[in-house]
């Protein structure tokens, strides 16, 4: 375990998780079936990175996180978090990681929020000064001051979520696993949570693995994204690369001086829609918009224009539809 800049905090090599499920067939016969929830996943996450981990329901996201926290033992492959084998040393690892489940809480239901934090302090043996600093920071950035004396059961979902995120960070974890941290939150709460995560990642260098169905979370927070489907990684790379990988298309919207027939003869682009003087042209996401704009401006009375990125949801839907081993 060296502290070099290129240190890989999370290492997964061909990790598998096979569940054996017994299913009834006929009246008495029960047949064992193997379900490969995670089917040979390999990736590395360097210290300080914030990575999005996405996939459809049942793709194996939660199983991966459970293995990374040590509450599930992999059926095969090698797994290390901060140099620790999670399943072997779950309790030792627990002191160095933070986990937030959007749909579960670690807070004490009937007690004021601050009581839960006191308990966290003792559980993780956070030194006093450190605890005060961290709590003050979380309280400020997550707007928790008015909530500290409120019993957790009286908090709204957004408030409780902020409370849970703070609870996961008071002991300065090196890695933070977030499973759907913005689920069910309103726009303002979502923004607040994202802003906070960005700060934590930037200032503390906390490594973050973010699982979500809300792709805006990923777009706003992560440069790198991993897509899992049927237990396999189907994409691992930069978010903008995902658009090209998913054969996404960008859209050039032009406003002409007057109503004209659909624009023709622009290489690499085709007109898909006309509404009055406004026209929509689509072109491959990998291609530059500049020559298209030049070509249009040369032959048409161009008044205004905008370029729209492909909708990331569509891109990912295409990836999922691509199925096993699609893009990589």
């Amino acid at each position, binding site marked *: 375990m060296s502290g070099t800049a290129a240190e890989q905090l999370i290492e997964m090599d061909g990790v598998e998780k096979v569940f054996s499920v017994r299913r009834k067939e006929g009246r008495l016969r029960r047949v064992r079936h193997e379900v490969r929830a995670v089917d040979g996943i390999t990736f590395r996450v360097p210290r300080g990175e914030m990575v999005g981990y996405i996939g459809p329901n049942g793709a194996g996201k939660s199983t991966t996180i459970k293995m990374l926290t040590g509450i*599930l033992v992999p059926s095969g492959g090698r797994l290390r978090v901060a140099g620790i084998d999670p399943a072997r040393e779950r309790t030792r690892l*627990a002191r160095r990681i933070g986990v937030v489940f959007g749909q579960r809480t670690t807070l*004490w239901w009937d007690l004021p929020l601050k009581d839960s934090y006191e308990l966290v302090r*003792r559980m993780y043996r956070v030194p006093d000064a450190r605890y005060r600093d961290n709590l003050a920071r979380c309280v400020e950035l997550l707007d928790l001051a008015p909530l500290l004396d409120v019993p957790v059961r009286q908090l709204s979902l957004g408030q409780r979520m902020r409370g849970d995120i703070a609870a996961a960070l008071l002991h300065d974890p090196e890695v933070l696993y977030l499973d759907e941290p913005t689920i069910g939150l309103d726009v303002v709460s979502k923004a607040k949570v994202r802003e906070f995560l960005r700060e934590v990642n930037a200032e503390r260098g906390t490594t973050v693995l973010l699982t979500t169905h809300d792709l805006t979370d990923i777009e706003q927070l992560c440069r790198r994204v991993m897509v899992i489907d049927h237990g396999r990684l189907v994409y691992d790379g930069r978010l903008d690369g995902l658009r090209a990988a998913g054969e996404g298309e960008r859209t050039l919207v032009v406003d002409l001086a007057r109503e004209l027939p659909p624009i023709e003869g622009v290489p690499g682009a085709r007109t898909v829609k006309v509404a009055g003087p406004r026209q929509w042209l689509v072109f491959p996401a990998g291609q530059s918009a500049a020559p298209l704009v030049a070509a249009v401006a040369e032959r048409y009375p161009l008044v205004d224009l905008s370029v729209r990125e492909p909708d990331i949801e569509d891109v990912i839907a295409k990836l999922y539809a691509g199925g096993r081993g699609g893009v990589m």
Partner: protein
Amino acid sequence: MRGSAEVLYTAVAAGSFRRYATYRTATVAGVVTNTVFGFIVAYTYIALWHERPHLGGYDQAQAMTFVWTGQALLAVSALMSGGNLDELQERIRTGDIAVDLYRPADLQLWWLAADLGRAGLQLIGRGVVPMAVGALVFPLALPGEALTWCVFLLSVLLAVVVSFALRYLVALASFWLLDGAGLSLISGLACMFFSGMVLPLRVFPGDFGHFVQLLPWASMLQVPADVLLGARTGGALLRGLAFQAGWAVALLALGRLVQRAATRKVVVQGG
């Protein structure tokens, strides 16, 4: 290391105590229920002891003491309910237990601490008041020396630990059962009878009477009541405490084994 673990579990117990302290309405309702039932059972026992004086070796004052001790310990020893552990059962059922496994804390000690906090509050809330009312209305055989009261409190502490250890096993069964409610019900009924809540175990004659006094449930009411009403003194007192401590250790150890198996099941098969 050792010291900070104690600090943690003390904090858990204190938190649980404060948590139960917030349930004021429930506490008041419980006190009223225990007091009312105390009167009903007391008059039943008076009728019984009138017909059969010295039943089970108790005189009438001792029988009355047994009744009010039973009411005082009903909530403390969680003789009818799961106490804190209904919540553990629910966390296992919903899968929230996964969150608890991420923590660097021992599951059994955590819940034991929480249950002791609960019992502490309920001893003050639902224990003291019914006992005081009973003592005002009926002649009770209460000890004069402070030492006996202290030994009684020690016996109550052991009663709570045995009760916890049993309920912990019941709650852990939810890892294997789809719904633990049925088992909880059976466990509650067994507890009501075998703890002596229905009738003091000493009343039952012959081998059956001896047998029921060897079961762990006897630790939960029969032994502490006998300590308080003076039916256990000297060697019998020490044997009673050793009996409780023995069951506490055995059941806690069994709980650890089952906990390990349950954790392994979750860890290997998923939640």
